[in-house]
Every structure is written in C-alpha cells, then in structure tokens.
C-alpha cells in the first residue's frame, strides 16, 4: 500500500457554519487554536478522537471533514 495524505475541509466547514472562528471551534472540541491552524494548513493529522470531535462540532460525519488520498506508488 502506498503512502497517502489526509486532507480536510475544516476551513470550508467553518465558513459554512456562520463563519465560526478557529477559537470557537477549538473551544468546542477542546484543543488549542494553534492546533486548528495546523490542521487547516495540513501540517497536522489529528487523532481519531479529535477527528470525531471536529466532525461532531459541525454535525457531519468524519468522512465529510477528512479525506484520505492515496498517492501513486513510485
């Protein structure tokens, strides 16, 4: 199995939810604003727990927030 990349739609979902701020989301899911920033910039892949918490904060499934894209081998 090749290596892949986890992307997310957190920024899009925040704006779709009344322009929720990064701090609001961080407070809802119990993490720091810097972690939300790192997630949005694709610099950090969250734990399964945090991924579920973020999805729940938006009222969507984890798959609606996070996508796994497998890169071609070679």
């Amino acid at each position, binding site marked *: 199995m090749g290596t892949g990349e986890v992307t997310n739609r957190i920024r899009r979902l925040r704006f779709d939810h009344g322009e929720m701020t990064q701090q609001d989301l961080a407070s809802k899911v119990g993490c*720091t604003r810097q972690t939300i920033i790192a997630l949005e910039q694709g610099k950090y892949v969250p734990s399964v727990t945090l991924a579920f918490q973020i999805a729940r904060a938006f009222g969507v499934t984890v798959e609606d927030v996070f996508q796994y894209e497998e890169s071609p081998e070679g």
Partner: protein
Amino acid sequence: MTPQQKRAWYGLAIGIVWSLALVAVFVARGATAFDQDAGMRATVYLLFIAGILAYVAMLYITRWSMGKQAVVMDERDRLILRKVPVYQMFAVLMTLAAWAVALSEVYQDQGQVPVVFPWLMFYSAIIVNIVFASAGTLIAYWRAK
C-alpha cells in the same frame, strides 16, 4: 503561539536571569569561597530556592491568567513535547561533561577537586534541567513547524 510556548518563553526568561544571578555570585566571590563564606552560601541557597519558586509561580500565574476553561495543552502539544526530555537530558549530559573536562584540566596536578564542586555540579544540573524544560519546548515547537 500556543499556551505552552508562552510559558516556555517566560520560563526561559526566568531561567536565564536565575542562572546569570547565580553565576554572578560565584564570579564575584569565587567558587571555592562557597565552603568558607556562610554569607555566600546563604545567598546561593536563597537564589536557588527563589529561582525554583519563581518558575513554579510562573506556571500557576500563566494557568490562572488563561482562565479555567482554556485548553493549555492538547494532543498536538503532547506529541511535540514528547521530545523535550531528550533535549533536557542532552543539555544535562553536556553540562556534566563540561564540568568533568574543566575540573580535570584545572585540578589535574592536585589529583583532587575541592569538595564544593560536586555540589555545584549537582545544582548546575538541576538549573540546566529546568532551563531546558523551557528551551527544549521552544526547540520542539520550532522543529515541529
């Protein structure tokens, strides 16, 4: 900047002032005077305890200023901070190595070192350990970028 980084900057500032104050006492009076001069010993002990108290107070004050509900550390912070003990251990080992080399060079001919130095090695190891709790935190966040 995460709450942990803010704390690390404050801790580093305290640690640097603390270290410089202790070094200044030893430079001014001479390390070997520690054994004979009760006033110097009292000053060093007071500075040592004051530094630790200032560091602990800083941890409490920063926690209090952030509010009870604020998240001070999350899973990403914990992941980053796992590397800090490595930096601390490296710094302490380097400090002990520096002591060993310096004392060997200076007291080679006498074949023995004044009894004050094992204590100074111990105190310096504690100070370096505390300073590198902050410096190591900043390095870990910097590398995580």
